[in-house]
C-alpha cells in the first residue's frame, strides 16, 4: 500500500493490484482490530483526507483504486463491529429518551480503568506512552466529527458547531484542544509533530481513530458520528481529572496538565449539548437514525474498552503498550 502511494498517481503501476491484495489480506486476518496491516493501511487511506503525507501525490485522495480497496476494509470493519457491539434496544426515538439512554450507557463504572491506573500507579514512562497512544487522535482532535457538520440541519447542526467551536478554541489558536495536547506532549519531552509516532502505535489504537474517520467521512454514518461524539464527551470529564492527577503526581507543571484540566470543564458542557441537542435532537428529526446513533455511542465505548484492555494488560505485565517490532 505505502509503496503504491509513494509513486505519482499518473501511470502508477500497482494501483490495480490494491483491491485483490486487500481481499487477500482481509481473508487471512484473524482479528481486524488488532491487525497491523489492515489498520495502518486504512489509517493511511484516511489520512489522505486530512493532511496527506509529504512526498505522496495529493491526487491519491480520490483515486478510484484506493477508494475501492478502502471500501473492502470498511465493509469488513463495519461487519466486525456490528457482530460485537451491543446496542441498547427499545429506546424511544425522542430527544430526551435518547439522551437518557446515552447517559445510562456511559455511566461511570467502578473497577480497573486506564484513568485510575494513570492517577495512582503509572510510571513516567507509562504516562509518555499514554500520550503517544493518544496523539494519533488528539493532535487532530475534533476533526473526524467535524465532517458531519454539512450533513446536519437545524438544532443538531448548531449543537455540533457549538461543541466544535469550543474544541477549536473559540477563535483562539492557543486554546485549540489539539494545540493544548501538543503542549502537554512537549511538557513531557515528546515530539508533538503531527504523525511523529504513527509507526509505534498499535493497531487497536489506530482502529479507534479509523472508526471515527469511517463514521465522519460517510454521510450515511452521520447518526453514528453524533452518537460517537456524545459517548466520547460523556466519558471524558471524570477520567481527565484522573489523567491530570497522574501527571501532577509526577511533578509535571500546570502547562503540561492544562489539556486535562481544560477537558474536565469543557466536556462537562459538551456532554450536555451532545446528548440532547446533537444526538437526541437528530433522532427526533430523523427517527430512522436511532440505531445508528446508539451504535456510534456503543462502538465508541467498545473500542475504548479494547484499547484500555491492551494498555492495562501491557502495563500490568511490565511491558510497553507500544509496538516494539
Amino acid at each position, binding site marked *: 500500500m505505502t509503496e503504491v502511494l509513494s509513486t505519482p498517481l499518473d501511470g502508477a503501476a500497482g494501483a490495480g493490484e490494491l483491491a485483490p491484495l486487500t481481499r487477500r489480506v482481509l481473508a487471512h486476518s484473524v482479528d481486524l482490530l488488532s491487525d497491523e496491516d489492515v489498520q495502518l493501511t486504512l489509517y493511511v487511506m484516511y489520512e489522505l483526507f486530512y493532511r496527506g503525507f509529504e512526498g505522496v501525490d495529493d491526487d491519491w485522495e480520490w483515486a478510484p483504486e484506493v477508494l475501492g480497496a478502502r471500501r473492502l476494509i470498511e465493509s469488513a470493519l463495519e461487519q466486525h463491529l456490528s457482530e460485537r457491539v451491543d446496542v441498547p434496544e427499545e429506546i424511544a426515538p425522542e430527544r430526551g429518551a435518547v439522551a437518557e439512554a446515552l447517559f445510562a450507557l456511559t455511566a461511570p463504572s467502578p473497577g480497573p480503568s486506564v484513568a485510575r491506573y494513570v492517577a495512582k500507579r503509572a510510571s513516567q514512562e507509562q504516562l509518555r506512552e499514554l500520550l503517544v497512544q493518544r496523539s494519533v487522535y488528539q493532535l487532530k482532535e475534533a476533526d473526524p466529527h467535524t465532517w458531519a457538520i454539512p450533513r446536519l440541519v437545524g438544532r443538531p447542526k448548531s449543537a455540533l458547531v457549538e461543541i466544535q467551536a469550543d474544541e477549536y478554541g473559540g477563535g483562539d489558536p492557543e*486554546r485549540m484542544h489539539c494545540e493544548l495536547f501538543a503542549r502537554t506532549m512537549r511538557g513531557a519531552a515528546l515530539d508533538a509533530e503531527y504523525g511523529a509516532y504513527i509507526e509505534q502505535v498499535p493497531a487497536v489504537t489506530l482502529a479507534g481513530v479509523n472508526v471515527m474517520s469511517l463514521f465522519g467521512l460517510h454521510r450515511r454514518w452521520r447518526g453514528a458520528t453524533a452518537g460517537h461524539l456524545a459517548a466520547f464527551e460523556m466519558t471524558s*470529564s471524570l477520567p481527565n481529572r484522573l489523567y491530570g492527577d497522574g501527571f501532577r503526581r509526577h511533578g509535571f507543571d500546570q502547562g503540561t496538565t492544562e489539556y486535562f484540566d481544560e477537558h474536565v470543564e469543557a466536556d462537562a*458542557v459538551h456532554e450536555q449539548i451532545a446528548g440532547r441537542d446533537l444526538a437526541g435532537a437528530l433522532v427526533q428529526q430523523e427517527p430512522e437514525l436511532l440505531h445508528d446513533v446508539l451504535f456510534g455511542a456503543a462502538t465508541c465505548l467498545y473500542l475504548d474498552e479494547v484499547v484500555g484492555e491492551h494498555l492495562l494488560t501491557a502495563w500490568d505485565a511490565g511491558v510497553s503498550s507500544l509496538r516494539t517490532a
Partner: protein
Amino acid sequence: MTASDRPADRRPGRTPSIVACPDGPILVRGDVTITDDTGQPIPRRRSTVALCRCGASAIKPYCDGTHKAIGFTAP
C-alpha cells in the same frame, strides 16, 4: 491573556439563556458575568459554561461531571 481579550468574547453580547439540564448542571450562554460573592469576576474560558448544581464539583462554580458519579437527581 484575560478572558475579555479573547477573540470569542469581542463579539456583540448574545442574549443570555439558562438551561437546567435534567439531573445535571445549568448551562449558561450569552452575555453574563459570573462573579464570586464579593463581586470579583470568575474566569470564563468558553462561551457556553456549565454551572454545578449537585454541589460536588471540584471546580465550582463549574461542573466537572461529578453529578453522574454521585447519582445526583435534580428536584
